């Protein structure tokens, strides 16, 4: 079984394409507190590399996990990020 994160907030950007997943993730995580975990649900395949690259070069953001799931025949990319202060 995969790790369950204690998610503080979920951001649903399904149906939105580049650059929205990254931009909205940034805006949402800025409003969270250090230690909080943000779950991002996207359908944009590019969000995998986009969010990974963004998290890598952004201070105070830690990428915990990225997963691919299916939701009603639609591929959903789940991202888990921690506000690292």
């Amino acid at each position, binding site marked *: 079984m995969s790790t369950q994160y204690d998610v503080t907030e979920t951001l649903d950007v399904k*149906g*939105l*394409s*580049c*650059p*929205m997943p*990254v*931009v909205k*993730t*940034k*805006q949402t995580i800025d409003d969270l507190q250090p230690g909080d975990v943000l779950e991002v649900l996207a*359908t*944009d395949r590019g969000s995998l590399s986009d969010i990974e690259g*963004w998290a890598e*070069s*952004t*201070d105070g953001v830690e990428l915990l996990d990225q997963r691919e799931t299916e939701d009603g025949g639609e591929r959903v990319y789940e991202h888990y990020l921690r506000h690292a202060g």
Partner: protein
Amino acid sequence: MSTETPAGTAEGDVAALQAELEELREEVATLKDDADDGAKKMTIIATKGSLDMAYPPLILASTAAAFDWDVTVFHTFWGLDILHEEQSKNLKLSAVGNPSMGVPNLVAAVPGMDTVATKMMARRIEDNGTASIEELIDLALDQGAELQACQMTADLMDYEDDEFYEGVTTGVGAAAALADMGDADIQLLV
């Protein structure tokens, strides 16, 4: 002893070296601070005002702002239409001279073809969940990107300051753009 050095001088040397070492340490610390301080800086010059060419500068600007980079987009010539509230809603896609569209120039030049091509593109943009130009402008400004309107072009096109989106920086010239590019890490011309 033959190697004897006058005590006073040796102590003086050590003190001088220590002082120099301290100075160097401080200098290194300052340089380190300067090197880390800093968000990257990107300047984009947007010169094109067709629907397809309006996207790259705005997408890059809003994404760079999400990286906390310092972003400036200088809009000049047709690129100024992107910032013009009314014009930005009527940006067109041209099928003429655009090999990617797969329409022969002779056909592409038929009156009304640009409208057809623009409508097709607009439909695809909507279906794909791609943001509109207006949304991207709001997003970029919201995140602190500076969108500048070239004054010379504004005068040339007869655009007034209040015709641009709120938050757009007006009254900017080539010298300001160059000064900005001078200390940017990344400079792009679109």
